[in-house]
Structures are given as C-alpha cells and as structure tokens.
C-alpha cells in the first residue's frame, strides 16, 4: 500500500512574464482520498494551483511529487490521464452528450463497445440518465456543468479538480453542485479538490481547507469555523457563541464575529476539574481517524471541535475513543475572518 501523500509540492513558483510571482508555495502536502477546499479571493492563485495539480501547467521552479514519485516534464502527459479538472464555466464540445462524455474513453483507446455502459454509468452519477442522445446545444447551465462532471468521471480518475464550481451561479444551482460534490465524494471515494472564494461554502463541504492569498498558502489544515456575537464588555475580547459557550479570541471586536480554529492548534489534555476556565472546553472523544501521519479527533462538548494529534502523543496521554478530555484553544491561534463571505 502506497502511504505517500497524493501530492507533495516543494518550493513551487509560477511566474508571469518571468518576473511577477503569481504562486509561491514553500511546501504543500495533500493526503489521498480527501475532499479539500482551496479558498482565497480573486487573484490569490487558486486556478494556477489547480492547473499545476492537474498537470496542465508547469511550475517555473520547484518540485512536484505525485504519490511519492517525482514528476518530471515528460510525466505531465501520462499523469494528466489520472487527474482531471472541470473549469468554472465548462466547455462542451459540439455534438451530443454521449460524444462529450465518451471523449475521455476515446482518447485513452478504451474499446468502443464499453462506451455505452460507462457513459450511462457516469451520467447516472450526475443524475442525467438517458441524456446520451441530447445535443449539447439545448442544455441548461446546470445540465452543462453536470455533463462536464460526468465527462470527467467516466474514465475513473484518481483526482477530480473543480475550479470554482459555484462561481456566478444562483442559490439553487449552488446547492445542487454542493450536494453533487459531497455525493460523488461519498460514492466514489476519489480525491476531490475544489476552489472557491466562499469560505462558508468550503467549511460546509469539508474540514480540510487551504487558504491562499497573494499566491501564498496562509493556512493548510483542518479548521473549525465559528461565528458569534462579540461581548459588549469593553476590552473583554470575548465572543458569545450560538451554542451558549464563550471564547476569548485575542482581540477586541464588535458585532458579529466569524473565526476559524486550526484543528492542529487545538490542545487536547486528559480532563481535570481544575481546567474550568476560559477557552478550556470539557469534551468527549467521539471519533478517531488516521489521516496521513496524524490522528483526527472529533471532540464533542459545549462546542464541537476537530483536533489533530500524533499517535505517539495520544498514547503518551493515555487518550482513546470515549475519553473525557479538555480541549484548549489558545486565543492566538484563532484566525478572524474579516470581509470574507
């Protein structure tokens, strides 16, 4: 079993006109089989990063490893056959839905007699069964997007990259695309990465969020998203959460406040009655999953928190499923969301 991360990017730089840096990543490791969101404002480098991960663009500097193997310039074409990307406004080729969805099979030389079955399977995954003979000319925006996703699914890729799949769409279509992403992730178990400028959406769909800004990674971890009302007490720095708990966020705010807490920064200690103080939350470990080299914990209490720990730390502290613990959130690890949707 290959335990290498899906992607490992080291010292990656992408330049425009050989001088302006549009992507500058020191190190990025993405585990296999995850649903990952890449969040950032316009111009943050999301599409460039996705193009590099889809092997459609070569970085100007740095190294890429795919499933532990270094990727050389000659590997791009072969790896492109294992990874696929769907654009934010996907283009369908002229012709029928069948011709479009079968394209990936055609270029891979899959025997033609397999096409009808595989195209039908892919179309049923996106709830477009029976659309094979329809011309792409008459499709609605939502149908076009689903055909594009079916076209990407038909050759069973290892990774699906979605570039801003809900950019500029109405609420109904956004909900459709969101449920499609989560359904596909659950049904196919493939690695899915999608970019969005909508942080709330990213957190609705996944815990693993990469924040990009100015071409650099700001955070790359599993995060906990919270929102609440800042305390009216001057200079308290406290926020009253909807669940009734109070948390100190490290800076004085007014009104509604939204913030994230990286799972890796949540400290987990065996419970002690003396721990009843601000930012200490009594919890129970209700879920433990091995993700890469770390164990991801779900801590349930007055607030639910995701935390990450190394297996040896967990063992040293004698923690196991069902253990009563104290989750400690240092105020300095809290990332305030300002002006982000």
């Amino acid at each position: 079993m290959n335990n290498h991360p899906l992607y490992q990017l080291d010292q990656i730089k992408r330049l425009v006109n050989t001088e302006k840096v549009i992507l500058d990543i020191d190190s990025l490791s993405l585990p296999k089989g995850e649903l990952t969101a890449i969040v950032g404002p316009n111009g943050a480098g999301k599409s460039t990063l996705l193009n590099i991960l889809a092997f459609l663009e070569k970085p100007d500097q740095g190294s890429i490893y795919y499933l532990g193997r270094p990727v050389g310039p000659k590997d791009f074409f072969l790896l492109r056959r294992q990874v696929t990307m769907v654009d934010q406004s996907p283009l369908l080729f002229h012709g029928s839905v069948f011709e479009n969805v079968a394209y990936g099979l055609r270029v891979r030389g899959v025997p033609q007699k397999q096409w009808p079955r595989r195209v039908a399977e892919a179309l049923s995954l996106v709830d477009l069964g029976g659309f094979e003979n329809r011309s792409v000319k008459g499709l609605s925006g939502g149908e076009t997007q689903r055909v594009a996703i079916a076209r990407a699914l038909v050759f069973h890729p290892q990774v699906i990259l979605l570039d801003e799949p809900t950019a500029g769409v109405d609420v109904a279509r956004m909900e459709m695309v969101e449920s499609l992403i989560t359904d596909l992730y659950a049904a196919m178990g493939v690695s899915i990465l999608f970019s969005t400028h909508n942080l709330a959406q990213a957190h609705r769909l996944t815990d693993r969020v990469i924040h990009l800004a100015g071409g650099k990674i700001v955070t790359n971890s599993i995060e906990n998203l919270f929102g609440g009302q800042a305390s009216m007490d001057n200079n308290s720095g406290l926020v009253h959460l909807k669940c009734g708990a109070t948390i100190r966020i490290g800076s004085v705010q007014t009104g509604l406040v939204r913030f994230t807490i990286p799972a890796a920064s949540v400290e987990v200690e065996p419970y002690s009655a003396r721990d009843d103080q601000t930012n200490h939350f009594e919890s129970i470990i209700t879920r433990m999953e091995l993700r890469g080299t770390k164990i991801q914990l779900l801590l349930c209490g007055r607030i639910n928190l995701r935390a990450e720990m190394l297996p040896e730390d967990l063992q040293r502290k004698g923690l196991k499923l069902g253990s009563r613990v104290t989750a400690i959130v240092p105020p300095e690890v809290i990332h305030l969301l300002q002006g982000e949707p």
Partner: protein
Amino acid sequence: MTDSGIGLEVFNIMGVSLRVSLCATALATMVSVPSGFILAVSSFHGKRVLVTIINTLMALPTVVVGLLVYILLSRSGPLGSFGILYTPTAMIMGQFILALPIITAITYAAVSSVDERVRKTAESLGASPFQASWMVLKEGRLGIIAAIIAGFGRVIAEVGSAIMIGGNIRGYTRTMTTAITLETSKGNFVLGLTLGAILLVVALSINMTVAHFLERKT
C-alpha cells in the same frame, strides 16, 4: 453543330472544369489547412507580417498567376522540359496557387476563433497534444469547410490563368469560364449566358451538398 453535339460538348467542358478545380482545391486543402492551423496555434517572430502577406495574396490577380506559371512552364522556363504547358496539369498548378492563400487565410481565421478552452479541456480529459489539436480542428470545422468552399469558388470561376496556361483547347483544356469567354467573343451571348447559368448551378449543387453534410454533422 447539332443540339446533342452542343450538349455533349457542354458536358465535356463541365467535366474538365470540375476535374481541374476539384483537383486543385483538394491539393490546396492538403497544404493550406495544416498551414493555416499551424499558423493559428503557433507564435513566432514575424507571424503578423506573414498573415498580412497571406491575406494580401488572396487578392492575387488570376492573370498574374497565369503569367508566372506560363513563364515557369514555357519551353524556355525552368520547368519547360516537362512539357505540361496547355494541359489540365498546368491548369491545376495555376488554380492550386490561387486557392492556397484563400484556404490558408480563412483556416487561420477559423482556428484562431476557436475557444481557447477547447485545447485545455481536451488535455484535461487526457488527450495527447495531437488529439487536442485534432479537437481544435474539429471545433473549427465550420470555418475550415467555409475556407475550402471559398477556395473552390475562386478557382471554378477564374478565367485568367485557365486561358493563359490551359490554352482553351476544345475537348482538352476548355473549361466553363474559358468557353464563356470564347462564345462571348464570337457574339454567342445566349450560349455564353447558358454556360454561366450551368456554372452557377454546379457551384450551387456543391455548396448545397456541403451545407446538407454540415447540418447532419452539427
């Protein structure tokens, strides 16, 4: 000449016209479509100048082409030893030169106007560079077919080079256009107009066949 004799002669003239023009268009397509495609997808120093030259050559006078080919093929010319002046082969050469810039320029325009996302989409679905290029060509096929039709239209209707290098030899190199010229000079306006109408009907039939084919395919 009897009516049936005229009919047979017109049939023969039409055959020469179609054979020469279709051959010239087919040969020009084989050279011009790849050239126009490469020109559209590549970038190199002097590309704009080259495109301007090709666009200018679309207006190349047919008599100039006739003159150049005549010089090449005449007994004292560099290709004079082949002895092909006043043959259908020579006429194909002339029409090939006339069709070349038209098909190249329109193919260039057609491929340039294909959505840039076509190549990227094809590549992201696993297409090799050749397969992705083929898809770009396929998406621009309406424009490319228009280029071929325009090239054919130019050569079937030209008279200058056909008369200069074909010689308008009855039953051998006489085409619809050279026959119209001859009949007009003889004062046979009715026959000239009839031949003109037949030429238009032939062109219309070919265009309708292509249009029908396109409707079926898209």
